């Protein structure tokens, strides 16, 4: 199978980059403040040694 060669030879300055994305650059501020993380604590107290599906505990010796 041929491996596709991607070569990026085009250097672009920050100014040119901003020009290229035009008005979309402005919305980066909205994207930034719209990034958040939701964190849900466990709904009940749990132990860690049995997990879902662990029905049996086997004693070896």
């Amino acid at each position, binding site marked *: 199978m041929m491996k596709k060669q991607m070569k990026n030879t085009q250097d672009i300055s920050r100014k040119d980059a901003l020009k290229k994305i035009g008005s979309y650059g*402005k*919305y980066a*501020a*909205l994207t*930034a*403040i*719209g*990034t*958040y*993380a*939701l*964190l*849900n*604590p*466990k*709904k*009940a*107290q*749990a*132990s*860690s*040694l*049995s*997990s*879902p*599906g*662990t*029905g*049996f*505990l*086997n*004693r*070896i*010796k």
Partner: protein
Amino acid sequence: MKEITILYKVFEDKTISWFQNKNEYAVLENTTAVILKKLNKGIPINEIAKTLSDELDVPLEKSINFVLELEKKFFPQENSEKLEIANNYKNAERPKDFEFIKYYKINDIVFKISFLSDKELSFVHPKFAHLVIDEVPDFKNEFEVFINHNYIFLYVNNVFIGSWDNCNIHYFQGKFSMELIQKIHQKEENDWLGVFHASAISNGEKSMLFLGDSGNGKSTSLALLQANGFTCLADDFVPVDAKKQEVYSFPAAISIKKSSLETLLPIYPELETTAEYNFKRLNKIVRYLKPNNNDFLAHLPCHDLVFIKYEKDAKLTCKKISKIDAFQQLVPDSWLSPKKENAQIFLDWFEGLNCYQLTYSNNEEMIKTVTEIFNNDL
């Protein structure tokens, strides 16, 4: 839109919000938190969007869409569905005869715990076997554990506590532990701030929590530290109270994985002959080590959270980490009280904690560093 209860706390350059309706925390940019506050107060969307548009120099239409999206996400109109995760009530007759009846003594409190068969016994007993005493006529609390129609039932002092199916055994064990600490420490569920999946040690004056993913070495570090002058307060299940935000003792044994035996056998030769248990689905083989705590009523303040990681050949590093990072790791792995007052106390308590990441391979260096953290010498 009906106002909902939200708490806000600024940490570093972010705001953490707590939503009472879902007992959910969100890490937000400060600007976003201000928008949520305004939305919750009923300020019109156009007005909020106009301010945002001016502030960020973005078209009003884009701001409106943004605020509408936030409203949709954080203030859903539909009634949130009730998720019944762990506790399915099923009518079942309580057995008259139990195959195993064990008596456990925790300080001076005796618990009589009846298990219908060895299966029920296996879910609870191994972690508490070091507390067993001979049969006594006087006991303060009576627990009954039995399986009926594929549900495991828990009764405490003749009161039905709950029933759990085969997939929720870890919640049964969690509830069992919760009932136990409530009886030991004379507290109700609302008196607890949370229960953390951590290991807790003390130097007699204060406590420290070790956190991290399973397999990172929390319990092994705890075992090493308890052999070097520190006291084990709790392993795996660490309760913190709401009133004084102190770490409370939990009397279960320390679970030692097979991979840690080589390190620990020279210090704890008794592990050689200790019973071994195989958690097949988790691919874990463990032995239980008796904690060195001789006062299971002990409770101590905690100012330090340490995300600990044993890494073969690693040079010891211990650095303070951002509270936001620590918060994001801590919350999904913890049970946190859904009570508003307790959520506020939790946020305030967390604000005052020092959070560290400690990576090590040399045990002596780890013990020295933990001592320095305790002594505020880092």
